């Protein structure tokens, strides 16, 4: 699996992401600066990492979403290429129109930095084949604007088409307002686009891939992607 990690000014999780990709796929990811207009030849997976691109000025992800490299990302996605956006990367994908909706300020206005539980809604996607449907994983979040919202029609479509991939839940997989840390509609933590090839999620699976950290629950996402490309090859 050849990965390209996009780097925008103010992003700070790109090295965690690159490290995880190296650990799990055995290949070094290409770091791609936002002013580039092309992705490296043979890119399988494009990753938009977390951080604070452009200091969250205007709206989170708004300015990064208009970077030169994003046209290449759009073209990659249009061909069915896989794109993963984590945290600020999710916000950028929404602002770029690659995913519907928007990430608003957390309901209780606090920046949330802690482990959360996610219920994996489907296992039949390239991003979640390393998990079982209904499985609960523990991964960290670190965001002030993760409160997902879209208009009613869009949310109904996301739900109807099974495009909600991760939901905030209890350790037993129960979706309940007490476990919906940022107030996201329907406890949505991650969604895919219509084609199922672009995933945006607020939590950071890349930070839970080594046992020394205390959890390897995030590893399945990356291991599943590697498998997906091995099978395709």
């Amino acid at each position: 699996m050849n990965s390209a990690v996009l780097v925008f000014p103010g992003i700070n999780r790109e090295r965690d992401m690159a490290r995880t990709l190296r650990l799990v796929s055995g290949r070094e990811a290409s770091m791609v600066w936002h002013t580039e207009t092309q992705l490296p030849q043979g890119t399988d997976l494009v990753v938009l990492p977390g951080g604070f691109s452009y200091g969250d000025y205007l709206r989170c992800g708004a300015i990064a979403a208009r970077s030169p490299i994003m046209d290449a990302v759009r073209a990659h996605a249009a061909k069915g290429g896989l794109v993963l956006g984590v945290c600020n990367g999710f916000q950028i994908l929404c602002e770029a129109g690659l995913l519907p909706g928007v990430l608003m300020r957390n309901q209780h206005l606090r920046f949330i930095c802690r482990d959360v539980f996610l219920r994996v809604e489907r296992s039949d996607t390239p991003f979640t084949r390393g998990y079982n449907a209904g499985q609960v994983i523990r991964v960290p979040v670190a965001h002030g604007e993760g409160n997902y919202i879209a208009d009613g029609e869009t949310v109904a479509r996301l739900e109807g088409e099974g495009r909600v991939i991760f939901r905030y839940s209890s350790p037993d997989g129960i979706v309940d307002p007490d476990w919906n840390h940022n107030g996201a509609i329907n406890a949505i933590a991650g969604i895919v686009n219509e084609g199922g090839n672009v995933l945006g999620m607020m939590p950071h699976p890349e930070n839970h891939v080594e046992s020394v950290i205390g959890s390897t629950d995030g590893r399945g996402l990356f291991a599943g992607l590697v498998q997906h490309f091995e099978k395709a090859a």
Partner: protein
Amino acid sequence: MPMKARVYVTLKSGILDPQGKAIEGALKSLGVEGITSVRQGKVFDIEVEATDRARAEAALKAAAEKLLANTVIENFRVEVIG
């Protein structure tokens, strides 16, 4: 001379505004009377070089649609001051 203009960006009705709610609460605790609701928005003061008002308005509308507002959740209004 560039024209002076303003773009107002406001949250659509029905969109929860946690910041506005927090400000509303703070005003209540300060004892400011009669305030029943606060919604927070943004104002952009812009200078625009254009031969006439219609062109200036068109440029501002493009700016708002392309970047200043996220029309999923926000409305905008442009105003050329002159």
